[in-house]
């Protein structure tokens, strides 16, 4: 009996919990909590405990597959790689470099993301590389980079304890970031006032000191109302504003057009409540703001994040302990994918593609000419598939289920000349591919993930990939060599060394320095211990920039034919498109059927009883699902998780994009319901 215990990092959410895989005879049979892990501290959420269950699932892809007249046939790795390289080069040669695009993945390691964007950029002289951050914290990266100089979470998870006030905007952390919720509860036990702003009465809201049950998508009016009140009462951090920020007057002028009453009408929160919350937040010595998809997944997602930055800077709650602006990243390595340049407009370390000497630096390093013009985002790539984009290489992503307006996505992908999908299961997206490459899951590779608090942590390989599957690092090296690129790496450690050499904020990051606690970037030199919180003394961009948030209510408001507001999102026992969680026996047993949450009042008016089969439809499409009556949602709004392929919530969502970050408005559209 070959027995081993391997420490690795959870493949699911952005909290980045560490745990131990118990491996017997090459099979991961059990997950054990790691009592010494800095974030998890010996605890795990329901998905963490089941993180070993999907690894050896029989559905795992084991050999490269090529589609011949509609049927997948197994082919060898050599054939697959050569064909992929040939097809991508063909598209670039016949339709120009920008005809090729790549979707990287927040599920893959930092090193794999780096190699992927290098492959697209150096291989085809185009910046058409993006990943699903576009669908979650795209607006956060865009807005915070512009306002503060860095798109990452300013403080750390363990930093909540000690804050006097914590405001949570649009985050059901108890279900999406359970271990971080533990830290927030610990802060509450140490005296923090917990304020929750959420249209749904989630568990977080129920346990908060104050719950503002806001109308969906009206966060900016609320924040403007708060800022208006703070300025009227003179509670703003005047000296912080003068010394450390700029362009406050523009905001001041804009705010003069707003009153607390107006904010109250628009947001549906009583004026006294706005006043009370503003008092608590501004008077606190140290206060932090936590936010998630409820803020970003709107047509005015970027503006929402600007509003939050304005509020934090107005009260000086940035750049000090127990404070800051804390976007909770959804995926295990979405922070890492952004850090490593899997974005159309930046190289690794948020170095913009448009900057000439940055461009030259990377051209020298990679030995290939690079394109200075920013590439297309996910939604644009899929939107122009078959037109501008001819060949697409998707690594470990499932846009068919995760992108809005599913029917549109499927039609576009069909129009492509050549689609390569690299994943561990034959997902809905992989089924449409011409070439499928079997990748490896988190337990079958070495590398690093970066969690939401910028902590880069080491994964250790526990088991071998199934059949002939290869880990993504190896596949990308093969692809790189096939494209004639310089991929001399023996192991992911060397990739990270190359990244360190090219990226100032990760200058000191090397595998041997990561140990058990990892390193929180920025970490410029080899001796730097990592940074607990950002913007101490000065903002990354110098002075904090106030930006006037352009408020637009949800694009599709409810009307007679579609009387309900549909909110989509995650629930605790499944993850994103369910590729892994629905193949985990323990998680599947917890929830195996799709559902839509309906308020008792709405259920009564439609004569729907708990568990009844119902049909939910919008202008984009309709799904049949089951009713779950709960007082979590308010009268007039319903909530649908997007984990269930048999009732894809994204067949309903609207394709309205945020102008700046191009994020779709997942959190609000109009829908109607009937008994099936």
């Amino acid at each position, binding site marked *: 009996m070959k027995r081993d*215990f391997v420490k690795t990092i959870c493949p699911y959410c952005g909290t980045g919990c560490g745990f131990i895989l*118990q491996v017997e005879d090459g099979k991961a049979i059990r997950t*054990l909590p790691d*009592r010494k892990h800095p974030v998890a501290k010996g605890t795990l*959420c*329901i998905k963490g405990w089941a993180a070993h269950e999907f690894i050896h699932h029989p559905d795992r892809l084991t050999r490269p597959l090529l589609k011949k007249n509609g049927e997948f046939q197994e082919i060898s790795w050599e054939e697959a790689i050569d064909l992929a390289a040939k097809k991508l080069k063909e598209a670039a040669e016949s339709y120009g470099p920008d005809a090729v695009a790549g979707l990287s993945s927040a599920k893959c390691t930092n090193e794999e993301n780096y190699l992927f964007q290098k492959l697209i950029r150096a291989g085809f002289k185009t910046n058409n590389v993006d990943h699903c951050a576009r669908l979650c914290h795209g607006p956060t990266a865009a807005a915070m980079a512009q306002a503060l100089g860095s798109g990452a979470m300013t403080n750390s998870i363990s930093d909540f304890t000690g804050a006097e006030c914590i405001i949570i905007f649009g985050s059901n952390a108890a279900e999406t970031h*359970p271990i971080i*919720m533990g830290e927030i509860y610990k802060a509450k036990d140490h005296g923090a006032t917990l304020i929750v702003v959420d249209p749904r009465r989630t568990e977080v809201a129920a*346990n908060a000191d104050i719950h503002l049950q806001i109308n969906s998508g009206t966060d900016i009016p609320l924040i403007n109302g708060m800022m208006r009140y703070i300025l009227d009462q003179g509670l703003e951090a005047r000296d912080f504003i003068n010394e450390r920020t700029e362009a406050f007057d523009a905001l001041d002028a804009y705010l003069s057009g707003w009153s607390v009453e107006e904010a109250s009408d628009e947001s549906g929160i009583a004026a006294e409540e706005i006043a009370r919350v503003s008092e608590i937040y501004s008077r606190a010595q140290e206060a932090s703001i936590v936010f998630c998809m409820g803020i970003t997944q709107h047509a005015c997602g970027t503006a929402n994040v600007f509003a939050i930055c304005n509020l934090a800077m107005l009260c000086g709650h940035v750049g000090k302990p127990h404070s800051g602006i804390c976007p909770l990243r959804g995926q295990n390595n979405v922070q890492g994918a952004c850090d490593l340049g899997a974005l159309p407009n930046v190289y690794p370390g948020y170095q913009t593609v448009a900057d000439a000497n940055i461009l030259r630096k990377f051209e020298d390093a990679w030995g290939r000419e690079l394109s200075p013009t920013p590439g297309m985002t996910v939604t644009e790539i899929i939107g122009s598939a078959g037109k501008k984009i001819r060949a697409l290489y998707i690594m470990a992503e499932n846009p068919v289920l995760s992108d809005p307006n599913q029917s549109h996505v499927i039609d576009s992908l069909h129009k492509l000349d050549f689609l390569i999908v690299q994943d561990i299961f034959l997902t809905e997206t992989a089924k449409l591919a011409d070439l499928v490459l079997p990748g490896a899951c988190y337990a079958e590779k070495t590398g690093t993930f970066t969690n939401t608090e910028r902590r880069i942590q080491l994964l250790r390989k526990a088991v071998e990939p199934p059949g002939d599957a290869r880990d993504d690092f190896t596949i990308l090296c093969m692809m790189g060599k096939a494209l004639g690129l310089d991929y001399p790496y023996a192991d992911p450690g060397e990739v990270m060394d190359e990244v360190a050499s090219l990226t100032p904020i990760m200058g000191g990051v090397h595998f041997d320095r990561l140990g058990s606690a990892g390193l929180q970037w920025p970490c410029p030199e080899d001796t730097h211990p990592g940074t607990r919180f950002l913007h101490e003394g000065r903002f990354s961009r110098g002075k904090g920039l106030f930006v006037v948030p352009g408020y637009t209510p949800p694009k599709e408001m409810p009307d007679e034919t579609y009387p309900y507001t549909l909110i989509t999102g995650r629930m605790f026992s499944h993850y994103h498109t369910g590729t892994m969680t629905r193949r985990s026996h323990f998680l599947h047993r*917890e929830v195996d059927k799709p559902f839509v949450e309906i308020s008792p009042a709405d259920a009564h008016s439609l004569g729907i009883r708990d568990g009844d089969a119902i049909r939910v439809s919008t202008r984009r499409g309709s799904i049949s699902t089951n009713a779950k009556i709960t007082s979590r949602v308010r009268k007039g709004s319903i909530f649908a998780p997007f984990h269930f392929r048999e009732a894809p919530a994204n067949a309903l969502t609207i394709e309205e994009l945020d102008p700046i970050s191009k994020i779709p408005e997942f959190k609000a559209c109009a829908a109607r319901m009937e008994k099936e």
Partner: protein
Amino acid sequence: MSLVEDARLKAKNALEEGLVDGVLALARVEDEPYPYVFEDAAETGMLELEPKWLLAKLAMNILRSSRQDYRLGIICRGCDERALNELSKRNQFDPARLHVIGLACSAEQARICLCTKPYPASIALGEKSEGFDPREDERARMFLSDDPGTRMQHWAAELSRCIKCYGCRNSCPICVCEPCKLEDDLWVRRGEIPADMVSYHLIRAFHLSDTCVACGGCTDACPVNIPLMLLQVAMRETLANNYGYEAGTDLERLSPVLSDLTIEPCPPLMEPGWLDSLKVNHET
């Protein structure tokens, strides 16, 4: 010789004398603690004793998945030893295949775990130190206070934070059922958090009423740090007072709740004329 060296020596001897085929304990690899099965005497240099890491359930699983005659040594604390006794009483593994090297905990550790008996029956490592009464702990006192109103308020507030991660059940050494009743929609509504305070937490707590060895595994595993072990304190005290029974201390004696009143009487029921709980005046 320090405690750790003593432990390493004992593990090494046990392996070299062929007393056991492997020793389960903590190992320090690249300055990180791992649970590890030492099968080669030379490796015992890496053996480690800190931090407190419950190994009982892992030992059981290892015995189950190894060959029939595989004998396992384990360096474990009092709570693990008691948990292993309860598991062997429940026929989960053959105790003859287990060789326990008992490690006594320090008073500080007892203070952290709120442990009343921080030492195994046979102490091979460390000295016996004072147990700690959970009611002494300031936070625990709120959950065990005499006034039911305070208790209710704290438990209701704390348990409504539950994210139903099943960590309390997964880390409890005694919980071995597969499937478990808590996942049956009949008892606890599935797919919802917070887990129903009464039916999830009290059913789980009552299933351990006569088997809980107060190892603190549930409290340690709770991401929203609910002091779950405190649910067991009152029941363990009742068992001690009524029957002089403590889980995990006697390999032969089964839970007194399973036997006849004529064999193991229950004092409150034995008062002359006790026929129903209404007659008992709860106001006193």
